[in-house]
């Protein structure tokens, strides 16, 4: 993100007033409130799939926030990767493990206070960090600073090494996923195959 903000070029504390917000700022705040609300509902709802769907709303709202900050490319990455695949992955996982319609109280593990503490602590850290880092900087919203082209220029001029490291990371994730999904038995025997079933039946007959 900091690269993209740097791309905007104008982080100097400008002579701006908080009292006369522009339309974009108002929309930004409204969408922010929506994102916050959706996020809260997402972690408090007792229905698993509803939680995932509220997460969609929260992440989609974030994409709109990115758009309002003229970070066009990041916004659509957010939609493509988070809405289009990560949330689908989450939903997939829930559906594969039988997320029932209605409340699922057994999904509550009783760690609520601990989770609340961790959440509050990390939120406080992040807010302090971000507020301290940017203080009274303003992003110049008059031009699109986060277009695909600009992102590409910054990425491939200054950040090539992290980019290549990312590919190794992704490869590791890929291999890990494959190994995990094939962990049990590690071979085709783990599958309930017709042949296996039949041997089970014959055993029963022998008894």
């Amino acid at each position, binding site marked *: 993100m900091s690269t993209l903000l740097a791309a905007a070029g104008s982080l100097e504390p400008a002579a701006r007033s908080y009292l006369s917000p522009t339309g974009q700022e108002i929309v930004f705040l409204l969408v922010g409130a929506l994102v916050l609300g959706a996020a809260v509902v997402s972690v408090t709802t007792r229905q698993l799939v509803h939680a995932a769907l509220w997460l969609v709303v929260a992440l989609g709202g974030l994409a709109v926030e990115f758009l309002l900050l*003229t970070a066009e490319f990041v916004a659509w990455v957010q939609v493509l*990767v988070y809405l289009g*695949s990560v949330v689908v992955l989450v939903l997939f996982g829930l559906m*594969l493990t039988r997320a029932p319609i209605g409340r699922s109280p057994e999904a509550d593990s009783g760690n609520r206070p601990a989770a609340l503490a961790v959440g509050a602590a990390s939120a406080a850290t992040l807010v302090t960090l971000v507020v301290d880092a940017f203080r009274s900087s303003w992003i110049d919203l008059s031009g699109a600073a986060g277009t*695909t082209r600009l992102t590409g220029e910054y990425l*491939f001029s200054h950040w090539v090494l992290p980019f290549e490291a990312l590919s190794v990371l*992704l490869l590791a994730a*890929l291999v890990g996923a494959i190994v995990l*999904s094939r962990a049990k038995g590690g071979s085709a025997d783990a599958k309930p195959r017709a042949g296996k079933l039949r041997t089970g039946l014959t055993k029963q007959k022998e008894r």
Partner: protein
Amino acid sequence: MEWQPLAADPAAGSGYFDAYAAVGLLAVIGVLFVVVSFTANRLLRPVVDTPEKLLAYECGVDPVGEGWAHTQIRYYVYAFLYVIFAVDAIYLFPWATVFAAAGFGAATLVEMFVFIGFLAVGLLYAWKKGVLEWT
């Protein structure tokens, strides 16, 4: 023949926001369209609920068991693979817009080939491990 992004034109500095305002407006119109059609449907349709009608459809017989069943993990693996490759593929777009520009050229091409190469290795690994096909 170089396409100039809208916002690069200082005179049309707010072109970016205009464009997305239009997208937002269309989204609102779309939602309105859905709401209007659902309302029209509500006004026009009959409501004759019978218990049979509200049963889950299972080819005419009464549904057996509950509606959720475990399915193969394979579907999940595909989704996981897609997430990884999608993260890869999005980097192609910023790259695509700059790699042929002055100052980038062959070096950037090679960088990208290294990136894609790593993922192609991943794909080959998945292929070799038999995750991509089942019979």
